[in-house]
């Protein structure tokens, strides 16, 4: 039974691929729009695009059907290559997160963010500085005054958590020892058992621990406080100029027409203003909604790319 389903999926994929090669008509959209996820089914990219597709279709925000297509592999390098092969065709919309910038920077795929057309940033995932509530650090001040080199847990080297730690070390004027862990679960475990002094992590994995009082969050990396954690002060209000978050957005292929761009933007913007989007995606995923249109998103991407480039060069990852 499942085998049949699998074969059907494979066939549908093949059909979709053969359609993709058909020459464009003048009216946009002339056929279904393809949402390209750079990671497999069930991953963050896939979940976001499927939620979007469902809401767009339920509210009839698009005149054509939408198909979510997974192009996993190479930390979205495969999807980047795929989207680039459809240059000038507006029937493709790809999810973009940090890997959209870091994969081109760290590997030699001959593409970067300027090869694509930014459409919109939908929201951000803020970073929290979290300590074990039973530990001796109760405020950012305690951390600043600690008389030893503190161990900081976060995800992989070169990740946004790593960069926030570097910025914090600069702002504090003190050395911090960053230890990369694989995935949020390991960071949480390390903090629970006091293997590390504090963690820099996005909000999802620690939210429950903060609510139950086992962890406390000392700072958040956004410009202003967020509704999710109204009691957590920002780094900025405590005098440390750190405003860095992960972003979740969508981009289209390069060199697409203005009409196509406007259509995609309107579709995505209308979608982001629905109640369903708030309830079914933003809230369950602890995303902070923060919409940016094409021009502002392009500007933002440029700034983030510079941050990544400088940090990754300093870390010795890019030569």
């Amino acid at each position, binding site marked *: 039974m*499942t*085998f049949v*389903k*699998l*074969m059907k*999926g*494979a066939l549908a*994929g093949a059909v979709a691929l053969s359609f993709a090669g058909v020459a464009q008509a003048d009216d946009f959209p002339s056929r279904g729009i393809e949402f390209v996820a750079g990671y*497999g*089914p*069930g*991953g963050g990219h896939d979940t976001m695009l499927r939620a979007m597709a469902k809401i767009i279709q339920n509210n009839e925000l698009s005149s054509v059907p939408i198909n979510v297509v*997974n*192009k*996993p*592999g*190479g*930390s979205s*390098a*495969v999807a980047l*290559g795929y989207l680039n092969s459809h240059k000038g065709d507006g029937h493709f919309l790809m999810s973009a997160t940090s890997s959209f910038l870091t*994969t081109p920077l*760290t*590997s030699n*795929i001959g593409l970067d963010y300027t090869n694509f057309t930014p459409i919109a940033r939908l929201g951000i995932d803020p970073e929290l500085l979290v300590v074990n509530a039973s530990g001796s650090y109760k405020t950012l001040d305690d951390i600043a005054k600690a008389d030893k*080199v503190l*161990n900081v847990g976060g*995800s*992989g*080297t*070169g*990740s946004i958590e*790593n960069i926030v730690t570097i910025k914090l070390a600069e702002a504090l004027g003190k050395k911090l*020892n960053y*230890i*990369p*862990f*694989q*995935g*949020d*679960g*390991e960071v*949480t*475990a*390390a903090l*629970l*058992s006091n*293997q*590390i002094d504090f963690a820099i992590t996005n909000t999802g994995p620690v939210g429950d621990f903060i609510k139950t009082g086992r962890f406390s969050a000392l700072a958040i990396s956004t410009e202003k406080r967020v509704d999710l954690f109204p009691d957590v002060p920002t780094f900025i209000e405590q005098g440390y100029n750190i405003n860095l978050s992960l972003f979740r957005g969508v981009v289209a292929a390069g060199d697409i027409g203005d009409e196509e761009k406007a259509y995609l933007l309107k579709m995505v913007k209308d979608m982001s203003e629905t109640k369903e989007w708030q309830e079914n995606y933003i809230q369950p995923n602890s995303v902070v909604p923060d919409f940016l249109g094409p021009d502002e998103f392009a500007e933002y991407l440029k700034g983030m790319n510079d941050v990544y480039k400088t940090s*990754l060069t300093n*870390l010795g*990852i890019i030569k």
Partner: protein
Amino acid sequence: MLDTLASLSGGFETVLTFHNIVLIFLAGIIGTVIGALPGLGPSAGIALMLPLTFGMPHASGLCLLTGVYMGTMYGGRITSILINTPGDAPAIITALEGYPMMRQGKGGLALGISAISSFVGGFFGLAVLVFFAPIVAEYAIFLGPPEYFMLMLVGLSTIVLLAGDDVFKALIVTCFGFLVSTFGSDYISGHIRFAFVPELIEGIDFVAIIIGLYGLGEVFYNLERKIVLNLGKPNFRFSDYIPGKEDLKQASGPTVRGSVLGTFIGILPGAGATIATFLAYALERKLSKNPENFGKGAIAGLASPEASNNAAVPGSLIPLITLGIPGSGGTAIMLGALIMFGLQPGPLLMIQSGDVVWAMIAGLILANFFLLASNVLLIPLFVNMLRLVQKHLPSIVVGLCIVGAFSLNYGTFNIWIALIFGVIGYLMRKNDYPTGPFILAVVLAPLAENYFRQSIMLAQGSWSIFINRPVSLTLVVFMVLVVCASIISKQLLRRRRVGTE
């Protein structure tokens, strides 16, 4: 204790849907057939089923995999007993006593007793899993990178100790596994290793490796020597399966001992079902009052290994679920599956995804009941299925492998990877290089590497972290003792051998 039972009943709630019950039943049947087919064992079974779980809810997918895993332990014994051809490694011992019983006209009894022993073994292992896993998980959270690094070393060192005849070959494939595991991005340094094409940025897909190694590799190997199972027409009456009072009495002690032994051997990293059966058999032979009956159809020698290989399955799931450490080739593949499902194996698995884990355990309990019933009542069905499947086995397996490899990334890249590892698997089989150490190294090496680097980073450059922490120190001492013991015992053996010559 009450919490455990509450969680377990929650698991049953998830599992007891029509869809899941049918799935678990089918998983048991598929596993039994795969186990019975010579050449396809537990690892191949899980590898072939893995791609089918992609679209499923996590709990159903895991139930399918563990059901197949358990099923192979039941299946291996069928061909062992009927035609003296073990379906997989853990059933080798079964043939020693089962086939003589068959020749004495007691084949039905052998099948019946081994099914019951398998059930008891599986049940005991599951009971230990149910009550032990939450306790281990509770303490596992206090382990940090140094302890995990030591556990990985224990796992890797047992590979060498339990390598079989040729330690050197096991070492070679272990090193090869290390090499394969280094491909792709390294999150500790942020660098990307050996990414000759973009598809390799995330490393070589583990599932593609095992599909190639165990699926395609076995097919290539079996093409050379066509085995045709001459199954005959076994004709048993239902009453043949029911052991008499005297038989049960003979089987009960060995079954209990096999269950206990199998569970604990299963827990040890590196050891697995096959080793459990050898040890269980040796133990029974030592304990027996009439060891001369062994090899001639001794019930004790049949019951104990059968109980132990089934008990080893839930046993090996304990370190997998609680610590994220696979104890065998089969569980290494299960680990890959957990990661693929987006579940983070490790001490937080029971806390963060407890519902899925408990559903899987509930599914295994259900599978064990189904398997007992089907392995007593459906023997003729299995025999017919084997006859049917073995004619087309290569085509079926190749088909499953290609579709499976394709579905990993919806592209042809992983088909090539599977093909390459198919050829490697063929060469390894042909030249007697064990695949188990290779798979364990592929899974354990990156973990060991990363835990080691994290430990040194945590200690801010000092090596003392490995001996300053009590658990880590205990593991170091344990490892030194194991190595010393094995060297000394080998020396003694050599001296004794020299003495007798």
